[in-house]
């Protein structure tokens, strides 16, 4: 019979399989990291360990500028998208049309990056044309650059890309929050903002912070929308791709890719660990509180 504890080995094998799949997904990345320490580069017969390529990264001014501008782009996106996700999650809880809200917020997941990027590109070009015409009609040049491709359009693209993830993460953390607590705070005389900031927010803080980290990394790593909507080769991924396509995979590209991967894995890893430790602690507190009651 295949009941839960019938086969210890079957259970272990399934665990092994799960870990094997995760490792396989990460294997190409690990391989890139391995290559990045080879003095002779990819495909060489001998493997000589070196940090040389990592040293060269920081001398590449083009790449350094690109990383700076990508970080700015990602940071601005986070500043906008996380409050938007939070507001939408609150809206979902109180609206009469939750299905409409959730469909609108989650549907960007199902629209491939290139298709959305292309549609937004044409949309912004049209808007720009319309506003320039309007400016000419009014006799002001003020409207000309409102919807030029650049930071604004790229940020709009990135917000649409990341909002579904932020929304879902915050909504899941909000699942544990009971609306009655807000009502209790309000009837004790708190304003809506105080009730949110002092009662609700502390309970959903983990979700908000993890979605910040996740958004930052998604934006930093995003290529298609940024390259279509930003124009020019001055973000991390666009520089990396142009380097890879024009000069082939240089040793420096391997080192660069690896370095960014270390940082991203470290951030996501620490968020995961932090979340786990926190939930463990909360559970322990909850258990400690529940036990005396259970005993009586």
């Amino acid at each position, binding site marked *: *019979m*295949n*009941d839960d504890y019938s086969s210890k080995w079957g259970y272990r094998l*399934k665990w092994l399989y*799960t870990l094997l*799949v*995760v490792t396989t*997904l*990460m*294997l*190409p*990345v690990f391989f*890139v990291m391995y*290559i990045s320490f080879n003095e002779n580069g990819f*495909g060489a017969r001998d493997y000589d360990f070196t940090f040389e390529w990592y040293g060269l990264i920081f001398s590449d001014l083009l790449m350094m500028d690109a990383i700076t501008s990508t970080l700015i782009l990602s940071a601005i996106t986070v500043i906008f998208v996380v409050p938007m*996700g939070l*507001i*939408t999650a609150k*809206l979902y809880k*109180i609206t009469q049309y*939750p299905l409409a*809200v959730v469909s*609108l*917020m989650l549907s960007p997941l*199902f*629209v*491939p990056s*290139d*298709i*959305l990027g*292309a*549609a*937004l590109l*044409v*949309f912004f070009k049209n808007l720009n044309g319309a506003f320039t015409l309007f400016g000419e009609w009014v006799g002001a040049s003020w409207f000309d650059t409102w919807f030029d491709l650049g930071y604004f359009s790229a940020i709009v693209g990135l917000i*649409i890309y990341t*909002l579904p993830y932020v929304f879902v993460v915050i909504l899941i953390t909000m699942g544990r929050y009971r*609306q009655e607590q807000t009502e209790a705070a*309000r*009837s004790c005389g708190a*304003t*809506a*903002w105080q009730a949110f900031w002092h009662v609700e927010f502390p309970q959903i803080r983990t979700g908000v912070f993890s979605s910040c980290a996740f958004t930052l990394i*998604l934006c930093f*790593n*995003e*290529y*298609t929308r940024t390259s*279509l909507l930003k124009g020019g080769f001055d973000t991390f991924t666009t520089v*990396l791709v142009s380097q890879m396509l024009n000069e082939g*995979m240089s040793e420096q590209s391997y080192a660069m*890719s690896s370095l*960014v*991967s270390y940082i*991203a*894995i470290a*951030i*996501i*890893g620490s968020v995961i660990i932090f979340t*786990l430790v926190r939930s463990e602690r909360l559970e322990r507190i909850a258990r400690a509180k529940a036990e005396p009651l259970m005993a009586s």
Partner: protein
Amino acid sequence: MTKQINTLDTRRGGSNSTSPFFVAYPRLGFFISKGVFAFPVIFMGLFFALPLALTFVWSVFERTMFWMKPAFTLFAYENFFTSARVDNFLASMGHSSISVLIAFIIGFPIAVFVRRRVPQVAQHRVILLFILPFAVSEIIRIFALRPFLQRNGLVNDVLLKIGVINEPITAILFTPTGVIIGEVMSFLPFIVFSGFLAMEAVPKYVFEICDDLGAGPIRVFIDVIMPLAAPGIFAGSLFIFVNGLGVALLPNILGGPGAVNAGLIATQAISALDFPLAMAVSAIMMATLLGLLYIGHRLFNLTRILTPIS
């Protein structure tokens, strides 16, 4: 009754805030809080739903030298359906379907295993592991498959060393196989996530009943898991299918000369400044997506997926 009034107050947000400003202008506070809640919805309507809906309009515009002008012509669709593009599109649908199948076979059992055997408190932690690949840029993950799969890459090296093959396999990279491997490697976690959510619809005791009644794993899968978890499975599969059709990087980097999907056709059309064609491809993609969503909803009632989060 009191409770109801309180709920209404909370719903209005800052409407009856006690700050002097809002006491002086109560209606203003009401409109501000309304506006704040409506902002993300308006934003998504304006910059997401509207551009995608307008692709249908722009696709019938007439192409000019560098841009397009309002007209009604089906030239872009004719261009799409009478050239090799439509064959490429159909072929990429085939590849995408194979990727969905492979990802499902590899990934879904993990979701079932985690829900069924892993203790409740640890379940989310195991699933979180599958977020790790997303920490690394898609570009790097896809590019990394090149040194991994190519003629003198890691896979061939290992296979040669252990003596499974005598000469390197060259039929992996720059062929549809390469694209399919890339799709599975990129999108597999999504089938695990959606499968995990879908399995929420299958209570654990159901498995115990199945065991008691002596049903084998295949019977359990077909008669119990499939009907209950169908909406989630469908959503995950649709996600992989559509992204396989639409992400241009995959065929661009891993595919050979013939590997072209809808995303690549659209971006190539934009590089060639043929905007109506790009919009026609986008419109066809949107129509495909909406059609599949409609079929899925009629068959499985997709609103059931939302049960765990509401």
